């Protein structure tokens, strides 16, 4: 059953007709030709389809497109500006934080989300329980980054460089204190 929806993707208004069964991931890749979000597992287990959905990192393979009519989506393709890489993308390049690259767009979008969440003071399960109401920005050390990035799998095992890349981006942003 076809439905017309509107999405704002990487800064552009897009109208697309989708079947009610179409996921956000398939709408992006198959209907709009935006192929940076990858279809790894298609079951919410690998994170390669991660984008920023209404400002937050989200898996797109389990989200129905029709339910996200009107959404603002930023994919890895839309993170940079004017030919400049986003600082997280640059950190991935600088730290050689990839091998085959398939999981990388999802890793980068997830890392951007992690930095936002930490800046808002969101805890992770490894965050030490602080004083009551303590919502200072979270400090992103190795353990925190590994936990917060655990939803993005890398079958090449590039984690050893991904964690330092995220740490460097966090430090540059002031979240690495």
């Amino acid at each position: 059953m076809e439905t017309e929806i509107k999405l704002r993707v990487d800064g552009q208004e897009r109208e697309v007709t989708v079947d009610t069964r179409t996921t956000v991931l398939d709408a992006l890749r198959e209907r709009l030709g935006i192929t940076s979000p990858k279809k790894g597992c298609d079951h919410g287990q690998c994170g390669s389809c991660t984008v920023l959905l209404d400002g937050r990192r989200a898996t797109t393979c389990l989200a129905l497109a029709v339910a996200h009519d009107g959404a603002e989506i930023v994919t890895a393709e839309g993170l940079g500006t004017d030919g400049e890489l986003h600082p997280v993308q640059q950190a991935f390049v600088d730290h050689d934080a990839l091998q085959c690259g398939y999981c990388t767009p999802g890793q980068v979008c997830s890392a951007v989300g992690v930095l936002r969440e930490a800046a808002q003071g969101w805890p992770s399960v490894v965050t030490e329980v602080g004083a009551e109401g303590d919502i200072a920005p979270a400090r992103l050390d190795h353990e925190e980054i590994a936990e917060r990035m655990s939803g993005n799998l890398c079958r090449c095992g590039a984690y050893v460089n991904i964690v330092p890349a995220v740490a460097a981006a966090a430090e540059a942003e002031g979240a690495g204190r």
Partner: protein
Amino acid sequence: MKPFRYERATDAEHAVATVAAHPGAAFLGAGTNLVDHLKLGITAPDLLVDVSRLPLDEVAETADGGLRVGANVRNADLAAHPAVRARYPVLSQALLSGASGQLRNLATTGGNLLQRTRCAYFQDPSTPCNKRDPGTGCAALEGWTRYHAILGASSHCVAVHPSDMAVAMAALDAVVVTLGPDGERRIPVTDFHRLPGDAPHRDTVLRHGELITAVELPGLPWATRSRYRKVRDRASYAFALVSVAVALDLEDDGRTVREARIALGGIAHKPWRAERAEQALRGLPATEENCRTAADAETADAHPLRDNAFKIPLVRNTLAAVVRDLVPETPSGSLEGAR
């Protein structure tokens, strides 16, 4: 995936009436579990009523000093909420133990309660499963049972409930508020999920068309001393082998248990409120030995399967570890106990 119609609900009563009137209809929240089931062929509704934009996304104070959490509050928001972190740390930790950051940003409070088992056989429509296809049998009984139940199972189903959040809510005596065709119901979360018995296809006591609108956390000042620990096969982003939620009320000596709330995850078809363990600890010092004895009282009737007898000592050790974390100032030596 079978075709389905999609309707976006604009008010809860109408959504309830619509689903109640259509036997093949289902509510859609964020879809992080349901959409997977549509892909896998586990369920095939012909109408999805999307309730994710209903204004059920507030965390509000209640008259008894508790919190009312709207069904559409996202797991990430609930975990980060200052009042939850300060007053119910066990719930924040349980939420943060579940799924991944990008799934928690989508998944809702109501949806988390309604997520279905990750039993490998339930998720594989090529195998028999009484939960997925009633009457076909249970492939897990003679299968790979590392992740299956040790308490409360039946010969029809040995699956476990996968939620972390619900385990913490069971310890906190939370109440599920629903809206059905006949009006509102309030269901203690400990009565919300069912044991499998001979009807494992029914995970909860919800009726068709009944919608979760909120979860209420009762005021419990001593829940500030609470904690959740989850043991799994990898350090993060995995379902529980065993999890333990504990809230402790200690006497003025800082070590004797006045009251305890304990719930276990990963061991039963529902979040398992451990009343025997609570009873066993009440009035005793929170020592490692007493925790182990309390855990053993809870698992005395356990029926482990081929691959999961390890869960009995794992419950014992995890309960002791959580209590040790909650009673840091105990005089030295008192946490040493016989193994």
